[in-house]
C-alpha cells in the first residue's frame, strides 16, 4: 500500500538533479539567509523555509513569497556548511506552486514564468514585448510611465526586437516538448 508522501518528501521528489537534496541535515545556522541579497524582501527567510519544510508546514510555506523572490544567485548554496543546495530548493518550491497552482496572491513570478515558457514553446525563442503585460501594470503609474519611456529609448537605439524570432525546425521542437510533457504540454 502506497503511503502518502510528507511535504518534505514531495519537495525532495521535485529536486531531481539535486538528488533530493539533504534538507534534513540543515543545522539552521542562518548562513544562507545571511548571504541572501533579497532576504529583507522575503516573508520568511530561506533558513526558515527549510525549517518549515522539515516540520511539514506545507500550507505556511506555500503562502510565502520567499522562493518567488529568489534571484537564483547561488550565494547561499556555495556557503552552506551542510552542503545543501538552497537555490535549487527554491526552484523546487516554485515548481510545486506552479504545479499546484497555489501561491501567494499578487506575485508576478508565476504568471510571468508561464507566459515566458509559452512564448518559447510557440517560437523557440523569447520575445520581450509579449512579456510586458505580465508586469507592466503591477508597479503603479509612475513605474508604468518609466517602463514605457525605457522601452521607447531602447527601441530608438535599436535594442528591442520588432519581429518575433522563430527557430526553423519549430514543428520538431514542439513534438520534442510534447514528448517530455505528454499531457497537452503548455499550450
Amino acid at each position: 500500500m502506497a503511503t502518502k508522501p510528507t511535504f518534505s518528501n514531495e519537495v525532495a521528489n521535485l529536486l531531481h538533479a539535486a538528488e533530493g537534496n539533504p534538507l534534513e541535515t540543515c543545522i539552521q545556522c542562518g548562513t544562507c539567509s545571511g548571504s541572501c541579497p533579497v532576504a529583507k524582501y522575503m516573508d520568511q527567510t530561506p533558513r526558515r523555509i527549510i525549517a518549515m519544510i522539515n516540520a511539514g508546514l506545507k500550507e505556511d510555506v506555500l503562502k510565502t513569497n520567499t522562493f518567488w523572490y529568489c534571484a537564483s544567485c547561488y550565494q547561499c548554496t556555495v556557503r552552506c556548511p551542510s552542503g545543501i543546495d538552497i537555490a535549487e530548493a527554491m526552484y523546487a518550491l516554485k515548481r510545486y506552486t506552479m504545479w499546484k497552482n497555489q501561491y501567494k496572491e499578487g506575485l508576478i513570478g508565476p504568471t510571468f514564468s508561464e507566459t515566458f515558457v509559452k512564448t518559447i514553446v510557440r517560437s523557440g525563442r523569447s520575445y520581450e514585448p509579449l512579456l510586458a503585460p505580465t508586469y507592466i501594470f503591477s508597479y503603479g503609474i509612475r513605474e508604468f510611465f518609466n517602463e514605457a519611456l525605457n522601452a521607447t529609448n531602447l527601441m530608438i537605439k535599436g535594442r528591442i526586437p520588432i519581429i518575433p524570432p522563430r527557430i526553423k525546425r519549430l514543428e520538431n521542437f514542439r513534438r520534442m516538448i510534447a514528448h517530455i510533457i505528454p499531457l497537452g504540454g503548455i499550450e
Partner: protein
Amino acid sequence: MTEKIGVYICHCGSNIAGTVDVAEVSRWAAEELQSRGVVIARDYKFMCSSLGQELIEKDIKEQGLTRVVVASCSPHLHEPTFRNACARAGLNPYLFEMANIREQDSWVTEDKLEATKKAKALIAAAVGRVAHQQPLNSLFVPIDPKVLIVGGGIAGIQAALEIANSGQKVYLVEREPSIGGHMAQFDKTFPTLDCSACILTPKMFDVGNHKNITLMTWSEVEKIEGYIGNFTVTIRKRARYIDQSLCTGCGVCWEKCPKKVVDDVFEASMAKRKAVYTPFPQAVPKFPVIDRENCTFFIKGTCKACQKFCPTGAINFEQQDEIITVKVGNIILATGFDLFDPRRIPQYGYGRLPNVYTSLEFERLSNAAGPTGGKIVLRDGVTVPKSVAIAHCVGSRDKNYNGYCSAICCMQSLKFAHLVHEKTGAEVYNCYIDIRTPAKGYDEFYQRLLEEGTHFIRGKIAEITNAPRTPEEEGKLVVQVEDTLIGKQRRVPVDMVILSCGLEPRHDYKEVARKFGLSCSADGWLIERHPKLDPVATMTDGVFIAGACQGPKDIPASVAQGAAAAARVLSIIGQGEIEIEAATAIVDETTCVGCTQCVSSCPYQAIEFLTDKKKAHVNEALCKGCGTCVGTCLPKSISLKHFTDEQIVSEMIGAMRVMKSFETVEVA
C-alpha cells in the same frame, strides 16, 4: 593420537537459545562429531559465568580433555575468559577455540531451522580446527623504564611531571626553543579567567629544574625503531649557536641584535623579534636560539653583535646539530594543534580587511606581555574599538572546511567578549550557531556574559565586508548575518571582528603518524585505541597520545589526558615486563629463500633480513599476527602460529562437510 574434545554450547539466556535449538545441537555434537574427537558435549545457560567456567575446568580435570570448544558469543568478548579457565585447569590456553553462534548466527538469522543448521556447521568447523591446534606460550619482554615525551605543551608537561615525580626518567622533546605550547600565548583562561602564563610557568619551571627530566628543546625526533619496552629513538638537537654551559640568560645578545624578524609563531605575526631570541620572557630553558635563516652573520658573514657583547662568551657560531640516540620503554605524543587559517574563507575578509583578527592574534593583543602591552586597539595601534563582533565556528562544523566541532571556540568566544567588555567597554556581538558550554563552570560563564550585556546573535556570519549600503556604514566593517531567533537579516557595523578559528591537526600530522607507527582519522587527528574506553592508548603498544593531538579539547581535558597517559606508562613500568600475544609469524629457515618479500610487506616492520644467514626473521614482540607475510611468501616458509594452513583448512572442511550433509538430506 586422537584428541579428547569437549564442546560447550551456551544459551546466552535467550540470545542464542531463542533462535538456535541448543539441546539438539548439543546432542548432535556428542553423537555426530564423536568420530572427530568429541567426547563430551554440554549446553548451559551462561557459559561465561563462574559456574559455566567451572563446568569446563571440571571436565578438563576429570575427563582428561585435551581440547575445548565453546560455542557462544564473539571471541572479542570472552576468548580471554575461557582461555583463562583452561589455563587454571592446567590446559594450555591455545588449545581452546570459540565458535561464534551469536553474532554470526542467532543474531543474524531469522529462521530457527537455518540457525540451528548453521550452529552445527560452526561448531564442526571449530572442532576440526582445534584438533590441529598446538600449545603456545606467550612471550615476555622486559621494559626499559625511561620514557620519551614528544611535545612540551600543557599535556606533555603534565605527563612529564607525573612520571618524573614517581622517580622514573623522562626525555621531553620540544620543537620550539621553549616549552609551554599554545597555552603560553593565551592571555586569560576560561572559565576562571586565571592568567594563563601565571598558572603555566610554575609547571614549566618544575620541568626545567626536575632532576628526572632531560629537556631537549629546539629538537625533533627523527627516527623510532623497536617495540614496547625497547624503543631506540634518534633525536636531532638543533644547533642553538649558544653554549648552554656559559649562557646566563641575561638577554644582552637579543638587546644588541640589529636584525628584526616578524614573529609568526609566538606573537602570531603581530610583533617582531630579533634573529637571536627567546620566544617569551619566561621561556624554559632560558637559553636563546639564533635563527640562522635570518641572522646577518649566517647570511652575509658580518655583524656578530651578540658575540661581541655577550659577557660570558656563550655565542658559538660553529656549533653543529647534535644527533642523540636514546633508549626508552614507552612514548607519549603530545604534539598539540594548529589553528585553522581563515584566509580559506575569503568572505570573512581576513588578510584583506585590516581589523579582522584570528583568535591567537587577539590573545596576543590582550596579553599584557604582548605587542600592545595588553591594550585592545585596532591595527593602527591607537584606536580603541567601540564595537566588536566575535564569529563562532570559523572553519568548523562546515563541510566546506572541517566538519567537526572544535570544542573550545564557544568558551573562547565568551572569554574574548568578557575581555573586550572589561578593557574597552565596547559593544560586543557574539554571532553563534549553538552555545557549547558543557564542563564545570562553563554555562555559569555564559550566564555571566549575558549579565555583562553581551549581544548574542544566533546566526553564523555570512560575510564581513567594507562595502557599505548606506552612508552610515561607510568606513566601518559590516557583519552581515541572519539573526535566526527573529528571522531577519541584520547588518551590524563594527570596528573590529575576532574570528574564533577552529583547531586543526598539526600540518605535518601524516609524517608524525608514520614515524610513530600510528593512524590518523580522515581529519588528521591521531587515533586512540578505543574512542570511549581507551582514549590515551593507541593500537601501537607502548605509544600513547595525550592532549589536542588526539582531538580538539580544552586545558583541563589536556591535563587529564597527560596524567592518564603517564599513569598508563607507569603501570607498564611497574609490571617490569610485558606479555606479547603468542599468535605470531615464524619463519622456517630451511625453506626460506631470502627474497625479502615478507620484510617489505609487513605493515609493522616486524620482519628483519638476517644478512649473515640470508634468511628472514620475525621479531615476535613487534609482530601483530596479521598474516600479510604468510600471503606474500612464495615458498610458503612463513607460517602464522595458531593460524596454520592445516588449522584453517580443517576449519573449512569441518563446516563444509556439515553443510553438504544437510544438502544431501534435503535432496533425498
